[in-house]
């Protein structure tokens, strides 16, 4: 029998040969990459396309969320009682501190008024959940379940209960991509809380380490010093804990010390983070307003 038993591979549908199609598609890829690298125009395309892949992210996240729910539902009475106790204790402590904070805040506002400087305005925050999605092990990135519809913008600060977590880098309609402070491409302007020495904390790509490469050998830093965000750079509001110094190596032959810090927030254990709306742009005094107003 001459009739083919096996279905023959279907020929290419378009008129081009495989080689030509390969070349054309490669060119498309190259131009996309160049556009994406150079310009912001592709961001819109990316935003629209990301709606298509969003369901996939949610699908992958679903079992993890479901498992968390199941565990919550079947938690034993003792663990719940213990957790309740602990939360009550924490609440009491936090309440105590808050009472003092209210007084301190008014005092701070009064003093700042005396000094004629801009008052710090409390900022707005929104809870976002981290999607259990993980693709590139070489980058410290994650996805959040908030997007443009919630008013998220690029370059927004993320914190958790312990400190600064990272910032948003790409915002889709329903999900947001964020960069951790420990990503190798990320840097946070920080100040040593003890004495106000300002420097920059750079990520290392390892979620437990930050590097402080710009401190000279005679800089006044010690192991255990708390680093807080300095507010320079405008992304992170001032005063949130960033990390704690774990290692200071001073080599006389080099002019800069090797300083390593550990992030304050639980970067790889978080499920929820807070998105902060930077409120430092909202000036309170008329003088500040005139300073920022375009001439």
């Amino acid at each position, binding site marked *: 029998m001459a009739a083919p038993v096996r279905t023959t591979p279907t*020929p290419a549908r378009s008129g081009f040969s495989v080689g030509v199609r390969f070349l054309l598609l490669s060119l498309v890829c*190259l131009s996309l990459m160049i556009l994406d690298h150079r310009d912001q125009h592709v961001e819109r395309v990316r935003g629209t396309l990301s709606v298509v892949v969003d369901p996939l992210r949610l699908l992958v996240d679903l079992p993890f969320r479901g498992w968390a729910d199941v565990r919550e539902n079947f938690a034993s009475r003792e663990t719940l009682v213990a957790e309740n106790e602990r939360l009550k204790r924490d609440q009491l402590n936090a309440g105590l501190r808050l009472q003092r904070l209210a007084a301190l805040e008014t005092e701070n506002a009064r003093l700042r008024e005396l000094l004629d400087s801009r008052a710090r305005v409390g900022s707005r925050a929104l809870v976002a959940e981290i999607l259990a999605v993980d693709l590139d092990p070489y980058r410290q990135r994650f996805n959040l379940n908030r997007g443009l519809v919630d008013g998220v913008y690029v370059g927004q600060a993320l914190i958790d209960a312990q400190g600064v977590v990272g910032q948003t880098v790409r915002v889709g309609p329903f999900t947001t991509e964020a960069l951790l402070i420990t990503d190798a491409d990320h840097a946070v302007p920080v100040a040593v809380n003890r004495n106000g020495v300002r420097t920059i904390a750079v990520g290392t790509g390892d979620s437990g380490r930050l590097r402080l490469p710009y401190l000279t050998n005679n800089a006044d830093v010690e192991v255990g010093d708390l680093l807080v965000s300095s507010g320079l750079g405008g992304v992170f509001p001032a005063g949130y804990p960033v990390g704690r110094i774990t290692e200071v190596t001073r080599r006389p032959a080099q002019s800069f010390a090797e300083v390593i810090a550990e992030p304050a927030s639980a970067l790889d254990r978080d499920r929820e983070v807070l998105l902060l709306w930077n409120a430092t742009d909202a000036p309170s005094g008329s003088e500040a307003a005139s300073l920022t107003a375009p001439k």
Partner: protein
Amino acid sequence: MARRQHPWFVAGLSLVLTLVLALVPLPRAISAFRPDWVAVVLLYWSVTAPRRFSLLTAFWMGIALDLLSGSLLGQHALALLVIVYIAERLHLLIRVFPLSQLGLTVLALLGLYEFILFWIDGVAGVTVPLTERWAPPLTGALVWLALLAFFDSGRREAHARF
């Protein structure tokens, strides 16, 4: 009538499943060993059922990966295009290879994939550590051979005779 080897929905489903596998979070200890699932599965199809997926499929899968991983738009797409193109061009040759050579060929292709990604990262100025880059092609080649053993054991001999 010959039974169709793989109905379309099986193939399509395998692609969606591949993206899911690429996304599922793994424990930190083994996450560096995660094979490049999309590359592995596309290579599997392009060798066992050439032209089932056109280069266009590779392109769109790559774009999906770019969107999901937040890399440059077109980065994964280009890497996938290159290896799928090579595999398609060589599939007649590759199909008759003994298993060990098949494994090595796939390893080389996955290595090329990883290299292209790394190279584009370098050109674009993204800081990415070089260590641990060796693991995904190795595990990928192993997974590829496993796929072949599971799904293709009967048909390979037939192909070889074909």
